Protein backbone atom coordinates (compact mmCIF):
# COMPACT_ATOMS: atom_id res chain seq x y z
CA UNK A 1 0.00 0.00 0.00
CA UNK A 2 1.19 3.48 -0.79
CA UNK A 3 1.66 5.91 2.12
CA UNK A 4 -1.24 7.81 0.62
CA UNK A 5 -3.46 4.79 0.86
CA UNK A 6 -2.36 4.11 4.42
CA UNK A 7 -3.30 7.66 5.20
CA UNK A 8 -6.68 7.16 3.57
CA UNK A 9 -7.37 3.99 5.53
CA UNK A 10 -6.28 5.67 8.74
CA UNK A 11 -8.60 8.60 8.10
CA UNK A 12 -11.39 6.14 7.30
CA UNK A 13 -10.83 4.35 10.61
CA UNK A 14 -11.08 7.65 12.48
CA UNK A 15 -14.27 8.52 10.60
CA UNK A 16 -15.81 5.16 11.45
CA UNK A 17 -14.86 5.48 15.10
CA UNK A 18 -16.29 8.97 15.23
CA UNK A 19 -19.56 8.07 13.49
CA UNK A 20 -20.10 4.95 15.52
CA UNK A 21 -18.97 6.56 18.77
CA UNK A 22 -21.25 9.57 18.54
CA UNK A 23 -24.20 7.52 17.28
CA UNK A 24 -23.71 4.94 20.01
CA UNK A 25 -23.69 7.70 22.59
CA UNK A 26 -26.94 9.07 21.22
CA UNK A 27 -28.41 5.56 21.07
CA UNK A 28 -27.69 5.09 24.78
CA UNK A 29 -28.98 8.50 25.80
CA UNK A 30 -32.19 8.04 23.85
CA UNK A 31 -32.51 4.26 23.97
CA UNK A 32 -32.43 3.77 27.74
CA UNK A 33 -35.27 6.19 28.46
CA UNK A 34 -37.13 4.64 25.57
CA UNK A 35 -36.59 1.16 26.98
CA UNK A 36 -37.65 2.29 30.45
CA UNK A 37 -40.78 3.77 28.94
CA UNK A 38 -41.56 0.56 27.07
CA UNK A 39 -41.12 -1.49 30.24
CA UNK A 40 -42.97 0.70 32.70
CA UNK A 41 -45.83 2.08 30.61
CA UNK A 42 -47.55 -1.23 29.88
CA UNK A 43 -50.98 -1.82 31.46
CA UNK A 44 -49.37 -3.50 34.50
CA UNK A 45 -46.26 -1.30 34.64
CA UNK A 46 -45.45 1.24 37.31
CA UNK A 47 -46.26 4.15 34.97
CA UNK A 48 -49.22 2.67 33.12
CA UNK A 49 -50.02 4.50 29.87
CA UNK A 50 -51.34 1.77 27.59
CA UNK A 51 -52.11 3.98 24.60
CA UNK A 52 -48.78 5.76 24.48
CA UNK A 53 -47.16 2.39 25.11
CA UNK A 54 -48.77 0.91 22.05
CA UNK A 55 -47.98 3.92 19.89
CA UNK A 56 -44.31 4.03 20.86
CA UNK A 57 -44.04 0.27 20.49
CA UNK A 58 -45.39 0.45 16.95
CA UNK A 59 -43.08 3.32 16.08
CA UNK A 60 -40.07 1.43 17.35
CA UNK A 61 -41.04 -1.62 15.33
CA UNK A 62 -41.53 0.55 12.27
CA UNK A 63 -38.05 1.99 12.45
CA UNK A 64 -36.58 -1.42 13.04
CA UNK A 65 -38.34 -2.82 9.98
CA UNK A 66 -36.71 -0.35 7.58
CA UNK A 67 -33.31 -1.48 6.25
CA UNK A 68 -30.53 0.93 7.14
CA UNK A 69 -29.64 1.78 3.56
CA UNK A 70 -33.27 2.80 2.95
CA UNK A 71 -33.42 4.75 6.18
CA UNK A 72 -30.25 6.57 5.19
CA UNK A 73 -31.95 7.91 2.09
CA UNK A 74 -35.45 8.29 3.49
CA UNK A 75 -34.18 10.38 6.37
CA UNK A 76 -32.38 12.91 4.17
CA UNK A 77 -34.88 15.74 4.78
CA UNK A 78 -34.77 15.06 8.51
CA UNK A 79 -30.98 14.90 8.43
CA UNK A 80 -30.84 18.26 6.72
CA UNK A 81 -33.07 19.68 9.41
CA UNK A 82 -31.00 18.29 12.28
CA UNK A 83 -27.43 18.31 10.97
CA UNK A 84 -27.78 21.20 8.52
CA UNK A 85 -26.18 19.10 5.79
CA UNK A 86 -26.86 15.93 3.86
CA UNK A 87 -23.29 14.87 3.23
CA UNK A 88 -20.37 14.04 5.44
CA UNK A 89 -19.90 12.37 8.80
CA UNK A 90 -22.65 14.29 10.56
CA UNK A 91 -25.08 13.37 7.84
CA UNK A 92 -24.38 9.72 8.60
CA UNK A 93 -24.64 10.13 12.35
CA UNK A 94 -28.30 11.14 12.17
CA UNK A 95 -29.57 8.00 10.40
CA UNK A 96 -27.14 5.79 12.33
CA UNK A 97 -28.53 7.08 15.62
CA UNK A 98 -32.11 6.85 14.41
CA UNK A 99 -31.57 3.26 13.43
CA UNK A 100 -29.53 2.21 16.48
CA UNK A 101 -31.80 3.77 19.11
CA UNK A 102 -34.86 1.53 18.61
CA UNK A 103 -32.58 -1.47 18.15
CA UNK A 104 -30.78 -0.84 21.40
CA UNK A 105 -34.01 0.12 23.19
CA UNK A 106 -35.58 -3.24 22.36
CA UNK A 107 -32.53 -5.13 23.61
CA UNK A 108 -32.36 -3.05 26.79
CA UNK A 109 -36.09 -3.57 27.24
CA UNK A 110 -35.61 -7.33 27.34
CA UNK A 111 -33.04 -7.00 30.15
CA UNK A 112 -35.24 -4.60 32.07
CA UNK A 113 -38.19 -6.97 31.78
CA UNK A 114 -36.13 -9.77 33.23
CA UNK A 115 -35.76 -7.91 36.52
CA UNK A 116 -37.68 -9.98 39.06
CA UNK A 117 -41.07 -8.47 39.88
CA UNK A 118 -40.35 -9.41 43.50
CA UNK A 119 -37.57 -6.82 43.59
CA UNK A 120 -39.96 -4.10 42.50
CA UNK A 121 -42.40 -5.20 45.19
CA UNK A 122 -39.69 -5.22 47.80
CA UNK A 123 -38.74 -1.71 46.74
CA UNK A 124 -42.34 -0.57 46.98
CA UNK A 125 -42.65 -2.16 50.39
CA UNK A 126 -39.72 -0.14 51.74
CA UNK A 127 -41.23 3.13 50.56
CA UNK A 128 -39.53 3.62 47.20
CA UNK A 129 -41.25 6.00 44.87
CA UNK A 130 -41.39 5.13 41.21
CA UNK A 131 -38.34 7.13 40.26
CA UNK A 132 -36.41 5.34 43.02
CA UNK A 133 -37.45 2.06 41.47
CA UNK A 134 -36.04 3.13 38.10
CA UNK A 135 -32.84 4.37 39.67
CA UNK A 136 -32.16 1.77 42.36
CA UNK A 137 -33.84 -1.36 41.05
CA UNK A 138 -34.54 -1.52 37.31
CA UNK A 139 -31.41 0.10 35.91
CA UNK A 140 -28.76 -1.39 38.22
CA UNK A 141 -30.29 -4.86 38.15
CA UNK A 142 -30.58 -4.85 34.37
CA UNK A 143 -27.16 -3.27 33.84
CA UNK A 144 -25.21 -6.41 32.88
CA UNK A 145 -27.80 -7.23 30.23
CA UNK A 146 -27.90 -3.65 29.03
CA UNK A 147 -24.12 -3.62 28.66
CA UNK A 148 -24.33 -6.84 26.66
CA UNK A 149 -27.02 -5.32 24.48
CA UNK A 150 -24.93 -2.22 23.96
CA UNK A 151 -22.06 -4.36 22.72
CA UNK A 152 -24.32 -6.00 20.16
CA UNK A 153 -25.62 -2.59 19.12
CA UNK A 154 -22.13 -1.15 18.59
CA UNK A 155 -21.03 -4.16 16.56
CA UNK A 156 -24.03 -3.91 14.28
CA UNK A 157 -23.47 -0.15 13.99
CA UNK A 158 -19.91 -0.76 12.77
CA UNK A 159 -21.46 -2.92 10.07
CA UNK A 160 -24.11 -0.35 9.20
CA UNK A 161 -21.58 2.46 9.06
CA UNK A 162 -20.08 0.81 5.97
CA UNK A 163 -23.06 2.16 4.08
CA UNK A 164 -22.41 5.70 5.22
CA UNK A 165 -20.33 6.19 2.09
CA UNK A 166 -23.64 6.61 0.29
CA UNK A 167 -23.94 10.05 1.86
CA UNK A 168 -20.25 10.78 1.46
CA UNK A 169 -19.43 10.18 5.09
CA UNK A 170 -16.36 8.10 4.38
CA UNK A 171 -15.33 5.48 6.86
CA UNK A 172 -13.81 2.04 6.47
CA UNK A 173 -16.67 0.55 4.49
CA UNK A 174 -16.52 3.37 1.99
CA UNK A 175 -12.78 2.84 1.42
CA UNK A 176 -13.28 -0.89 1.01
CA UNK A 177 -15.96 -0.39 -1.62
CA UNK A 178 -14.34 2.44 -3.55
CA UNK A 179 -10.79 1.14 -3.61
CA UNK A 180 -11.02 -2.50 -2.73
CA UNK A 181 -14.07 -3.41 -4.77
CA UNK A 182 -14.39 -0.88 -7.56
CA UNK A 183 -10.64 -0.63 -8.26
CA UNK A 184 -9.79 -4.25 -7.49
CA UNK A 185 -7.23 -3.30 -4.84
CA UNK A 186 -7.12 -6.55 -2.90
CA UNK A 187 -4.58 -5.25 -0.40
CA UNK A 188 -6.83 -2.39 0.67
CA UNK A 189 -9.79 -4.75 0.85
CA UNK A 190 -7.84 -7.19 3.03
CA UNK A 191 -6.50 -4.45 5.28
CA UNK A 192 -9.93 -2.95 5.83
CA UNK A 193 -11.47 -6.32 6.57
CA UNK A 194 -8.68 -7.06 9.05
CA UNK A 195 -9.20 -3.72 10.76
CA UNK A 196 -12.95 -4.27 10.94
CA UNK A 197 -12.49 -7.73 12.42
CA UNK A 198 -10.03 -6.37 14.98
CA UNK A 199 -12.41 -3.55 15.82
CA UNK A 200 -15.38 -5.84 16.33
CA UNK A 201 -13.30 -8.24 18.41
CA UNK A 202 -12.08 -5.39 20.57
CA UNK A 203 -15.61 -4.07 21.14
CA UNK A 204 -16.88 -7.55 21.94
CA UNK A 205 -13.97 -8.22 24.28
CA UNK A 206 -14.43 -4.99 26.21
CA UNK A 207 -18.19 -5.50 26.36
CA UNK A 208 -17.86 -9.07 27.59
CA UNK A 209 -15.29 -8.08 30.19
CA UNK A 210 -17.51 -5.31 31.51
CA UNK A 211 -20.48 -7.64 31.66
CA UNK A 212 -18.48 -10.30 33.45
CA UNK A 213 -17.33 -7.79 36.02
CA UNK A 214 -20.90 -6.68 36.65
CA UNK A 215 -22.22 -10.22 36.87
CA UNK A 216 -19.47 -11.28 39.27
CA UNK A 217 -21.09 -9.36 42.11
Amino acid at each position, binding site marked *: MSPQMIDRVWQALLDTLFMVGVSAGIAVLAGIPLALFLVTSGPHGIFPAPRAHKLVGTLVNGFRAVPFIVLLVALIPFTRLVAGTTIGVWAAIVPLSVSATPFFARIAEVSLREV*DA*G*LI*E*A*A*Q*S*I*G*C*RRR*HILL*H*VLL*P*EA*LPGIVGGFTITVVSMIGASAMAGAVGAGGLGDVAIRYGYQRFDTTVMTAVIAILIALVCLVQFVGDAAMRR*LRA*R
Partner: protein
Amino acid sequence: MAGLAFDTIRGPVRWVARGAAATAGPAARIATEKRAAGTVSFEGVSKTYRSASGAVQALDRIDLEVPAGTIFGIIGRSGAGKSSLLRTVNRLEDPTSGRVLVDGEPIAELDMAGLVALRRRIGMIFQHFNLLSAKTVRQNVALPLVVAGVPRAEIGTRVDEVLRLVGLEDKAETYPSRLSGGQKQRVGIARALVSNPEILLCDEATSALDPETTLAILRLLRDINRRLGITIILITHEMSVIREVCSNVVVLEQGRIAETGPVWRVFGSPEHPATRALLEPLIRGLPADLSARLQPHPAPGATAVLRITFSGQSTPDLASLAAAAPVRLLQAGIEQIQGHAVGRMLVAVGDAGPDAEARLRALGGEIERIGYVAADD
Protein backbone atom coordinates in the same frame (compact mmCIF):
# COMPACT_ATOMS: atom_id res chain seq x y z
CA MET B 1 -26.84 -10.22 68.70
CA ALA B 2 -25.53 -11.18 72.08
CA GLY B 3 -23.76 -7.91 72.64
CA LEU B 4 -26.88 -5.85 72.22
CA ALA B 5 -29.49 -4.35 74.38
CA PHE B 6 -32.56 -2.45 73.33
CA ASP B 7 -33.63 0.82 74.66
CA THR B 8 -36.70 2.80 73.91
CA ILE B 9 -36.40 6.51 74.08
CA ARG B 10 -39.68 8.19 73.24
CA GLY B 11 -40.46 7.64 69.61
CA PRO B 12 -38.13 5.58 67.54
CA VAL B 13 -36.53 2.60 69.17
CA ARG B 14 -32.78 2.86 69.52
CA TRP B 15 -30.23 0.18 69.94
CA VAL B 16 -27.35 0.71 72.25
CA ALA B 17 -24.32 -1.43 72.89
CA ARG B 18 -24.77 -3.43 76.05
CA GLY B 19 -21.65 -1.92 77.57
CA ALA B 20 -23.04 1.56 77.24
CA ALA B 21 -26.44 0.57 78.60
CA ALA B 22 -24.94 -1.22 81.57
CA THR B 23 -22.94 1.79 82.63
CA ALA B 24 -25.84 4.11 81.92
CA GLY B 25 -28.14 2.77 84.56
CA PRO B 26 -30.47 0.16 85.98
CA ALA B 27 -32.03 -2.74 84.13
CA ALA B 28 -35.21 -0.72 83.70
CA ARG B 29 -33.45 1.31 81.07
CA ILE B 30 -32.76 -1.78 79.04
CA ALA B 31 -36.29 -3.12 79.28
CA THR B 32 -38.40 -2.20 76.32
CA GLU B 33 -41.68 -0.44 76.59
CA LYS B 34 -44.13 -2.15 74.31
CA ARG B 35 -45.55 0.28 71.85
CA ALA B 36 -49.28 0.56 71.37
CA ALA B 37 -48.86 1.21 67.67
CA GLY B 38 -49.08 -1.64 65.21
CA THR B 39 -52.75 -2.61 65.12
CA VAL B 40 -54.20 -3.88 61.87
CA SER B 41 -57.94 -4.28 61.27
CA PHE B 42 -59.57 -5.86 58.27
CA GLU B 43 -63.19 -4.88 57.77
CA GLY B 44 -65.11 -6.90 55.23
CA VAL B 45 -62.09 -7.13 52.96
CA SER B 46 -62.74 -8.78 49.60
CA LYS B 47 -60.41 -9.09 46.66
CA THR B 48 -61.23 -10.24 43.17
CA TYR B 49 -58.52 -10.58 40.56
CA ARG B 50 -59.66 -10.02 37.02
CA SER B 51 -57.57 -11.37 34.21
CA ALA B 52 -58.07 -12.54 30.68
CA SER B 53 -58.89 -16.02 31.91
CA GLY B 54 -61.68 -14.76 34.17
CA ALA B 55 -62.20 -13.47 37.69
CA VAL B 56 -60.79 -15.12 40.81
CA GLN B 57 -62.14 -14.21 44.19
CA ALA B 58 -59.11 -14.45 46.43
CA LEU B 59 -60.65 -12.91 49.56
CA ASP B 60 -64.25 -12.96 50.66
CA ARG B 61 -65.36 -10.53 53.36
CA ILE B 62 -62.53 -10.93 55.81
CA ASP B 63 -63.08 -9.40 59.23
CA LEU B 64 -60.05 -9.67 61.43
CA GLU B 65 -58.29 -7.76 64.17
CA VAL B 66 -54.54 -8.02 64.67
CA PRO B 67 -53.68 -6.54 68.07
CA ALA B 68 -50.51 -4.50 68.45
CA GLY B 69 -47.45 -6.42 69.54
CA THR B 70 -48.71 -9.89 68.65
CA ILE B 71 -47.19 -12.44 66.34
CA PHE B 72 -50.13 -13.32 64.16
CA GLY B 73 -50.01 -16.38 61.92
CA ILE B 74 -51.89 -16.86 58.67
CA ILE B 75 -52.26 -20.43 57.48
CA GLY B 76 -54.25 -22.15 54.79
CA ARG B 77 -53.85 -24.25 51.70
CA SER B 78 -52.00 -22.88 48.73
CA GLY B 79 -54.29 -20.44 46.93
CA ALA B 80 -56.40 -19.79 50.03
CA GLY B 81 -55.69 -16.07 49.83
CA LYS B 82 -52.96 -15.70 52.45
CA SER B 83 -50.62 -13.55 50.38
CA SER B 84 -53.50 -11.49 49.05
CA LEU B 85 -54.59 -10.71 52.61
CA LEU B 86 -51.10 -9.84 53.82
CA ARG B 87 -50.42 -7.65 50.83
CA THR B 88 -53.43 -5.45 51.52
CA VAL B 89 -51.71 -4.25 54.70
CA ASN B 90 -49.06 -2.23 52.85
CA ARG B 91 -51.23 -1.82 49.78
CA LEU B 92 -49.16 -3.92 47.46
CA GLU B 93 -52.70 -5.05 46.72
CA ASP B 94 -55.83 -2.94 47.10
CA PRO B 95 -59.03 -4.63 48.29
CA THR B 96 -61.90 -4.72 45.81
CA SER B 97 -64.21 -3.87 48.68
CA GLY B 98 -63.96 -3.45 52.43
CA ARG B 99 -61.20 -1.60 54.19
CA VAL B 100 -57.95 -2.09 56.00
CA LEU B 101 -57.03 0.10 58.96
CA VAL B 102 -53.58 0.51 60.41
CA ASP B 103 -53.66 2.00 63.89
CA GLY B 104 -57.27 2.87 63.26
CA GLU B 105 -56.54 4.81 60.11
CA PRO B 106 -58.12 3.63 56.84
CA ILE B 107 -55.20 3.24 54.47
CA ALA B 108 -57.17 3.30 51.23
CA GLU B 109 -57.52 7.06 51.49
CA LEU B 110 -53.79 7.77 51.58
CA ASP B 111 -52.28 9.69 48.69
CA MET B 112 -48.89 8.75 47.27
CA ALA B 113 -46.96 10.61 49.97
CA GLY B 114 -49.14 9.10 52.67
CA LEU B 115 -48.69 5.64 51.21
CA VAL B 116 -44.92 6.00 51.14
CA ALA B 117 -45.04 7.14 54.77
CA LEU B 118 -47.23 4.17 55.68
CA ARG B 119 -44.87 1.74 54.00
CA ARG B 120 -42.02 3.14 56.04
CA ARG B 121 -43.94 2.07 59.14
CA ILE B 122 -44.43 -1.44 57.77
CA GLY B 123 -41.52 -3.74 56.99
CA MET B 124 -41.88 -6.78 54.79
CA ILE B 125 -39.80 -9.89 54.19
CA PHE B 126 -40.21 -12.41 51.41
CA GLN B 127 -39.76 -16.09 50.68
CA HIS B 128 -37.10 -15.41 48.08
CA PHE B 129 -35.57 -12.52 50.04
CA ASN B 130 -35.81 -10.09 47.10
CA LEU B 131 -32.45 -8.44 47.71
CA LEU B 132 -30.90 -6.21 45.07
CA SER B 133 -28.03 -8.13 43.51
CA ALA B 134 -26.26 -5.00 42.29
CA LYS B 135 -25.99 -3.55 45.80
CA THR B 136 -23.92 -4.66 48.76
CA VAL B 137 -25.55 -5.79 51.97
CA ARG B 138 -24.98 -2.34 53.40
CA GLN B 139 -26.52 -0.62 50.38
CA ASN B 140 -29.50 -2.96 50.45
CA VAL B 141 -30.16 -2.29 54.09
CA ALA B 142 -29.59 1.44 53.67
CA LEU B 143 -31.98 1.83 50.74
CA PRO B 144 -35.15 2.55 52.76
CA LEU B 145 -33.33 5.40 54.49
CA VAL B 146 -31.63 6.65 51.32
CA VAL B 147 -34.94 7.01 49.50
CA ALA B 148 -36.43 8.66 52.58
CA GLY B 149 -33.72 11.32 52.41
CA VAL B 150 -32.17 10.54 55.79
CA PRO B 151 -28.77 12.26 56.23
CA ARG B 152 -25.82 10.09 55.31
CA ALA B 153 -24.10 9.97 58.68
CA GLU B 154 -27.30 8.88 60.34
CA ILE B 155 -27.82 6.15 57.73
CA GLY B 156 -24.37 4.75 58.46
CA THR B 157 -24.91 4.35 62.20
CA ARG B 158 -28.43 3.07 61.79
CA VAL B 159 -27.39 0.44 59.24
CA ASP B 160 -24.59 -0.70 61.53
CA GLU B 161 -27.10 -1.06 64.35
CA VAL B 162 -29.50 -3.26 62.45
CA LEU B 163 -26.73 -5.33 60.90
CA ARG B 164 -25.48 -6.01 64.40
CA LEU B 165 -29.03 -6.85 65.46
CA VAL B 166 -29.27 -9.57 62.81
CA GLY B 167 -25.69 -10.71 63.35
CA LEU B 168 -24.27 -9.68 59.98
CA GLU B 169 -21.96 -6.81 60.88
CA ASP B 170 -19.05 -8.57 59.17
CA LYS B 171 -20.91 -9.01 55.87
CA ALA B 172 -21.72 -5.35 55.24
CA GLU B 173 -19.58 -5.00 52.13
CA THR B 174 -20.52 -8.36 50.62
CA TYR B 175 -22.89 -8.81 47.69
CA PRO B 176 -26.02 -10.88 48.41
CA SER B 177 -25.05 -13.59 45.92
CA ARG B 178 -22.24 -14.62 48.27
CA LEU B 179 -24.55 -15.21 51.22
CA SER B 180 -26.37 -18.33 52.38
CA GLY B 181 -30.16 -18.42 52.45
CA GLY B 182 -30.29 -17.72 56.15
CA GLN B 183 -27.91 -14.79 55.81
CA LYS B 184 -29.94 -13.40 52.93
CA GLN B 185 -33.08 -13.50 55.03
CA ARG B 186 -31.22 -11.73 57.82
CA VAL B 187 -30.37 -8.98 55.36
CA GLY B 188 -34.06 -8.92 54.40
CA ILE B 189 -34.98 -8.53 58.07
CA ALA B 190 -32.38 -5.82 58.58
CA ARG B 191 -33.73 -3.92 55.57
CA ALA B 192 -37.28 -4.29 56.89
CA LEU B 193 -36.31 -3.03 60.34
CA VAL B 194 -33.99 -0.21 59.40
CA SER B 195 -36.73 2.42 59.38
CA ASN B 196 -38.11 1.34 62.76
CA PRO B 197 -41.38 -0.12 61.57
CA GLU B 198 -44.21 -0.96 63.92
CA ILE B 199 -45.41 -3.86 61.79
CA LEU B 200 -43.44 -6.60 60.06
CA LEU B 201 -45.08 -8.67 57.31
CA CYS B 202 -43.55 -12.05 56.51
CA ASP B 203 -44.72 -13.97 53.44
CA GLU B 204 -43.35 -17.51 53.77
CA ALA B 205 -40.14 -16.02 55.07
CA THR B 206 -38.69 -19.35 56.16
CA SER B 207 -40.06 -21.58 53.40
CA ALA B 208 -36.84 -21.53 51.40
CA LEU B 209 -34.66 -22.31 54.42
CA ASP B 210 -33.49 -25.55 56.00
CA PRO B 211 -34.96 -26.50 59.41
CA GLU B 212 -32.01 -25.30 61.43
CA THR B 213 -31.86 -21.92 59.71
CA THR B 214 -35.63 -21.66 59.98
CA LEU B 215 -35.33 -22.05 63.72
CA ALA B 216 -32.65 -19.36 63.95
CA ILE B 217 -34.71 -16.93 61.89
CA LEU B 218 -37.79 -17.63 64.02
CA ARG B 219 -35.84 -16.94 67.18
CA LEU B 220 -34.71 -13.68 65.68
CA LEU B 221 -38.28 -12.73 64.78
CA ARG B 222 -39.52 -13.63 68.24
CA ASP B 223 -36.73 -11.61 69.76
CA ILE B 224 -37.58 -8.61 67.63
CA ASN B 225 -41.23 -8.92 68.62
CA ARG B 226 -40.50 -9.20 72.34
CA ARG B 227 -37.88 -6.54 72.60
CA LEU B 228 -39.20 -3.97 70.17
CA GLY B 229 -42.89 -4.72 70.45
CA ILE B 230 -43.25 -4.91 66.68
CA THR B 231 -46.44 -6.57 65.45
CA ILE B 232 -45.53 -9.47 63.21
CA ILE B 233 -47.97 -10.96 60.72
CA LEU B 234 -46.59 -14.09 59.15
CA ILE B 235 -47.71 -16.54 56.52
CA THR B 236 -46.35 -20.04 56.65
CA HIS B 237 -47.21 -23.52 55.52
CA GLU B 238 -45.19 -25.00 58.37
CA MET B 239 -47.45 -25.61 61.35
CA SER B 240 -44.41 -25.92 63.56
CA VAL B 241 -43.58 -22.29 62.81
CA ILE B 242 -46.99 -21.20 64.07
CA ARG B 243 -46.65 -23.37 67.17
CA GLU B 244 -43.17 -22.03 67.80
CA VAL B 245 -43.71 -18.29 67.61
CA CYS B 246 -47.30 -17.18 67.04
CA SER B 247 -49.73 -16.09 69.67
CA ASN B 248 -52.74 -15.97 67.37
CA VAL B 249 -53.57 -17.67 64.14
CA VAL B 250 -56.14 -17.34 61.40
CA VAL B 251 -56.98 -20.21 59.08
CA LEU B 252 -58.03 -19.18 55.59
CA GLU B 253 -59.98 -21.44 53.29
CA GLN B 254 -60.98 -20.30 49.83
CA GLY B 255 -60.72 -16.66 50.75
CA ARG B 256 -62.76 -16.96 53.93
CA ILE B 257 -61.81 -17.23 57.57
CA ALA B 258 -62.22 -20.87 58.59
CA GLU B 259 -61.31 -20.12 62.18
CA THR B 260 -59.17 -17.82 64.24
CA GLY B 261 -58.02 -17.51 67.82
CA PRO B 262 -55.08 -18.09 70.13
CA VAL B 263 -52.79 -20.77 68.74
CA TRP B 264 -53.27 -23.10 71.72
CA ARG B 265 -57.01 -23.08 71.21
CA VAL B 266 -57.04 -23.44 67.45
CA PHE B 267 -54.37 -26.14 67.55
CA GLY B 268 -55.77 -27.79 70.67
CA SER B 269 -59.33 -28.13 69.45
CA PRO B 270 -59.52 -27.42 65.74
CA GLU B 271 -63.13 -26.92 64.72
CA HIS B 272 -62.97 -26.50 60.99
CA PRO B 273 -62.13 -29.36 58.60
CA ALA B 274 -59.59 -27.10 56.88
CA THR B 275 -57.73 -26.62 60.17
CA ARG B 276 -57.82 -30.34 60.88
CA ALA B 277 -56.44 -31.07 57.44
CA LEU B 278 -53.59 -28.62 57.99
CA LEU B 279 -52.80 -30.05 61.41
CA GLU B 280 -52.98 -33.64 60.20
CA PRO B 281 -49.19 -34.00 59.82
CA LEU B 282 -48.73 -33.00 63.45
CA ILE B 283 -51.16 -35.57 64.78
CA ARG B 284 -49.82 -39.02 65.39
CA GLY B 285 -52.17 -41.75 64.29
CA LEU B 286 -52.68 -45.10 65.97
CA PRO B 287 -49.65 -47.35 65.87
CA ALA B 288 -50.19 -49.89 63.08
CA ASP B 289 -49.92 -53.01 65.27
CA LEU B 290 -52.37 -51.61 67.79
CA SER B 291 -54.93 -50.67 65.21
CA ALA B 292 -54.69 -54.19 63.75
CA ARG B 293 -55.53 -55.74 67.13
CA LEU B 294 -58.21 -53.26 68.01
CA GLN B 295 -61.70 -54.73 68.32
CA PRO B 296 -64.93 -52.78 68.43
CA HIS B 297 -66.52 -54.91 71.18
CA PRO B 298 -65.15 -56.10 74.49
CA ALA B 299 -64.19 -59.75 74.74
CA PRO B 300 -64.20 -61.21 78.25
CA GLY B 301 -61.36 -59.73 80.25
CA ALA B 302 -60.47 -57.28 77.46
CA THR B 303 -58.69 -54.01 78.03
CA ALA B 304 -60.32 -50.76 76.89
CA VAL B 305 -58.20 -48.39 74.85
CA LEU B 306 -58.97 -44.75 75.53
CA ARG B 307 -57.84 -41.64 73.77
CA ILE B 308 -57.54 -38.66 76.08
CA THR B 309 -57.36 -35.35 74.24
CA PHE B 310 -56.04 -32.31 76.01
CA SER B 311 -56.95 -29.06 74.33
CA GLY B 312 -55.26 -26.67 76.66
CA GLN B 313 -57.91 -26.48 79.36
CA SER B 314 -56.10 -28.73 81.79
CA THR B 315 -52.74 -30.38 82.29
CA PRO B 316 -52.38 -34.13 82.38
CA ASP B 317 -51.69 -35.12 85.96
CA LEU B 318 -50.02 -38.48 85.71
CA ALA B 319 -50.22 -39.31 89.41
CA SER B 320 -53.99 -38.81 89.53
CA LEU B 321 -54.29 -40.65 86.27
CA ALA B 322 -52.58 -43.69 87.75
CA ALA B 323 -54.63 -43.41 90.94
CA ALA B 324 -57.93 -43.20 89.07
CA ALA B 325 -57.58 -46.50 87.28
CA PRO B 326 -55.01 -49.15 86.41
CA VAL B 327 -53.83 -47.46 83.21
CA ARG B 328 -51.02 -48.37 80.91
CA LEU B 329 -49.64 -45.63 78.66
CA LEU B 330 -49.54 -46.68 75.01
CA GLN B 331 -48.69 -43.47 73.27
CA ALA B 332 -48.51 -39.79 74.16
CA GLY B 333 -47.85 -36.57 72.36
CA ILE B 334 -48.47 -33.57 74.57
CA GLU B 335 -46.97 -30.18 73.98
CA GLN B 336 -47.01 -26.85 75.66
CA ILE B 337 -48.34 -24.10 73.46
CA GLN B 338 -48.29 -20.74 75.18
CA GLY B 339 -48.38 -22.55 78.49
CA HIS B 340 -51.32 -24.73 77.55
CA ALA B 341 -50.98 -28.50 77.35
CA VAL B 342 -52.21 -29.63 73.97
CA GLY B 343 -52.14 -33.12 72.52
CA ARG B 344 -53.36 -36.63 73.05
CA MET B 345 -52.61 -39.74 75.00
CA LEU B 346 -53.53 -43.30 74.28
CA VAL B 347 -54.00 -45.45 77.37
CA ALA B 348 -55.12 -48.98 78.01
CA VAL B 349 -57.40 -49.32 81.03
CA GLY B 350 -57.39 -52.77 82.59
CA ASP B 351 -60.45 -53.93 84.49
CA ALA B 352 -62.59 -51.42 82.68
CA GLY B 353 -65.11 -50.90 85.39
CA PRO B 354 -67.74 -48.26 84.65
CA ASP B 355 -66.45 -45.88 87.31
CA ALA B 356 -62.81 -46.16 86.23
CA GLU B 357 -63.63 -44.21 83.16
CA ALA B 358 -65.74 -41.74 85.09
CA ARG B 359 -62.86 -41.15 87.46
CA LEU B 360 -60.53 -40.52 84.52
CA ARG B 361 -63.02 -38.12 83.04
CA ALA B 362 -62.97 -36.10 86.22
CA LEU B 363 -59.29 -35.37 85.64
CA GLY B 364 -60.02 -33.20 82.62
CA GLY B 365 -59.28 -33.92 79.02
CA GLU B 366 -61.72 -35.35 76.59
CA ILE B 367 -62.02 -39.11 76.70
CA GLU B 368 -62.97 -41.26 73.81
CA ARG B 369 -63.12 -45.06 73.85
CA ILE B 370 -61.66 -46.23 70.59
CA GLY B 371 -61.85 -50.00 71.13
CA TYR B 372 -60.62 -53.02 73.01
CA VAL B 373 -57.69 -55.31 72.93
CA ALA B 374 -57.59 -58.83 74.28
CA ALA B 375 -56.28 -59.08 77.81
CA ASP B 376 -53.38 -61.42 77.08
CA ASP B 377 -51.78 -58.95 74.65
